[in-house]
Each structure stands twice: as structure tokens, then as C-alpha cells.
């Protein structure tokens, strides 16, 4: 059984709840509806043999609706098949936790919550993992400046704004020359 067969099987079982599947250079990606995301993952874990969650990450499509996307990288231990499961998440939506399927999902979900502010429903210990409890921002969101924003929690931690001297350096694909492709900075709000 390869990952491509598993994608076909998932399509058979879930039908229209699988919104899209993509194959790119042998990598299989499944786009699931958020409502049936947990069922899809449970099928992968329990029936298709994806015993390990490699990573859970998230993408901020700032300006799009729904805004966020959670990405699950799962694989099997025996024959090294690899599957990517994605689901779109709106700003006010919660994602069902995968900690009941993979214990290793715990810290990954906490990181997503910490950096992007996507809450996971049913997570046993959903608190920040990198920043401290009480830090008011979600730093990896696109509308958060790299330089940071000032905050202060007495006796815990404070933050300031880093001097970027007109930066940060960003890249814009499709520019005619290097100056246009790599401008000094890109202003957000």
C-alpha cells in the first residue's frame, strides 16, 4: 500500500468531505473539511497505518477567507509512506485535537496555538510552549511585525521593538531585477 492508494481509499470513504487531493513529485496531499478532519486523521492512524505524526504546522493566508490552514505531516514506521493532510480554519474556528490519535501531537499543537493562535478543542494541556503564558500576541501571524510589539508582564517577561533599520529584508517573486525582487521591506498596515 502506497500513499497514493491511501488517498484513493480516503476518497472512497469520505467522498465529498475530501475537498481536493494533490500529488506533487510523489508527495501526496489531502485537503479535508475541518468538520471531518478528525475522522480522516483517525482513519489514517487506525486503518491505514500512519503511526507517527512528524509535524503539525499552520499557514496564515492573510487576507484570504478562511484565513488559516493547519497541516499534518504523518507517516508510517514500516514502509515509510508519507501523507500530508491539510484543513482550512477560519479565525473563529477551533480544530479538533489529534492528541487522542498520536500522543506526539501534544507539543506540536501547543506550538501552533502559541505562534498562530489557533485553538485545539479537547487538547489536554493547551497553553503556550515557547512564549510565556500571558504574552498578548501571536508572533507568526502575517500581521505581526518581525520587530515585535511592546508588552510587559511584571516579574515574568517584557518585550520591546527591535530596531530593523528599514528592514526586514523580504522577497517578492516576479520582480524584474534584484532590487525589485528583494526590497528592503514590505509595509503591513
Amino acid at each position, binding site marked *: 500500500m502506497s500513499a497514493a492508494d491511501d488517498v484513493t481509499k480516503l476518497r472512497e470513504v469520505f467522498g465529498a468531505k475530501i475537498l481536493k487531493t494533490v500529488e506533487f513529485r510523489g508527495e501526496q496531499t489531502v485537503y479535508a473539511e475541518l468538520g471531518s478532519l478528525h475522522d480522516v486523521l483517525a482513519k489514517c492512524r487506525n486503518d491505514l497505518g500512519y503511526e507517527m505524526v512528524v509535524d503539525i504546522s499552520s499557514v496564515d493566508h492573510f487576507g484570504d477567507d478562511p484565513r488559516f490552514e493547519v497541516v499534518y505531516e504523518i507517516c508510517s514506521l514500516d514502509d515509510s509512506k508519507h501523507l500530508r493532510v491539510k484543513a482550512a480554519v477560519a479565525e473563529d474556528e477551533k480544530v479538533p485535537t489529534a492528541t487522542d490519535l498520536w500522543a506526539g501531537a501534544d507539543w506540536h499543537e501547543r506550538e501552533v496555538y502559541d505562534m498562530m493562535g489557533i485553538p485545539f478543542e479537547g487538547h489536554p494541556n493547551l497553553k503556550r510552549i*515557547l*512564549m*510565556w503564558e500571558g504574552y498578548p*500576541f501571536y*508572533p507568526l501571524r502575517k500581521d*505581526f*511585525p*518581525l*520587530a*515585535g*510589539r511592546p508588552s510587559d508582564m511584571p*516579574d*515574568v*517577561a*517584557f*518585550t*520591546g521593538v*527591535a*530596531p*530593523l533599520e528599514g*528592514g*526586514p529584508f523580504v522577497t517578492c517573486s516576479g520582480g524584474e531585477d534584484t532590487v525589485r525582487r528583494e526590497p528592503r521591506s514590505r509595509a503591513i498596515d
Partner: protein
Amino acid sequence: MVSPSTNTLHTSYDSKIEGNLIFTRVDAAINWMRKNSLWPMPMGLACCAIELMATASSRFDISRFGMEVMRFSPRQSDVLIVSGTVTYKMALAVKRIWDQMPEPKWCVAMGACASSGGMFRSYAVLQGIDKLIPVDVYISGCPPRPEALIEGLMKLQKKIEGEHSTMDQKKEFIDQIS
């Protein structure tokens, strides 16, 4: 001048001791002792700490300067070597360790990150430990080689030589009593 003693029975007068008397200022004597027994508090936060360890070990050997006694207790140390990236999460812990160190105390910002935030111009990193702690010596480098750290510590020794042993080195104490 030391003259060889022929009589070993009578120790009430010892020409060896008498001959080794030195006249100096108290300040100079105290500073001489302080600068030659700087006990570092290694605040190893990132890759600079590897160079700090190399500096302490036999190839570079800061015991030549009386600094080999790395104390992991702030109560017993004289110089805080901040070696590495100070994140905001760690910042107040570093400050607290500094506050726990008894005077006289000095601070060395080792490497680009501790001096200025280095390449980490970001929301998570304190842009230089001098925003929290008065720094005596900044050492450039990313990370600095052990020679650079040793030079920084020798610069610190030079600085200690020229300081007033109470007014300059016990400022917190003077603030308390005044």
C-alpha cells in the same frame, strides 16, 4: 632583598619575611587581589558558551588569570559572562542572577547577541543585555574566539586596576547607606 638565613631555630626575626615587605595604597592592593581572582558566573545561553568552555579548558586556560573558578552560584561569583542570545523569556532570569551577585561585580557581554541582539532582530530577543544590566566589557564576534574573550577579560582587569575599590565597585552598598 632576601638574605639567606643561617639560623633556623630563632624565628622571632625572619629576614625572609622582613625582606618581603611592600608599601602600597590600600586601593591598589585590593584591586590587585580582586582582578587576579575574578570568579566568573558563566551565563551560557547559546553557541558563545562553547567558546567560553574552550576558554576555560586547558588549551586557552583562563586559570592563568585566576579566573578558572566557574561558579554556578551567583552568590560566589564576581563577573557575569553573558555568553549568547538573551531571549525575552530568559531576560529577567539573567537580571535576577545579576541582582543575586554580591558586590563588587562586573558584567561582560560576550558576542554580538549579548551586546546588541546580534542577527536576531526579532520579537523574541532582547536587543543587548545592557538594556537590563550595566555592562563593563563588550566582546565582538559571532561567536568570539577564546583569545577575544581572554582579551576582554584582560581589559576588565585593566579597568578594575583603575577603579576606586569602594566608591566605584560598591555602588549599591553606597546607595543603601546614603
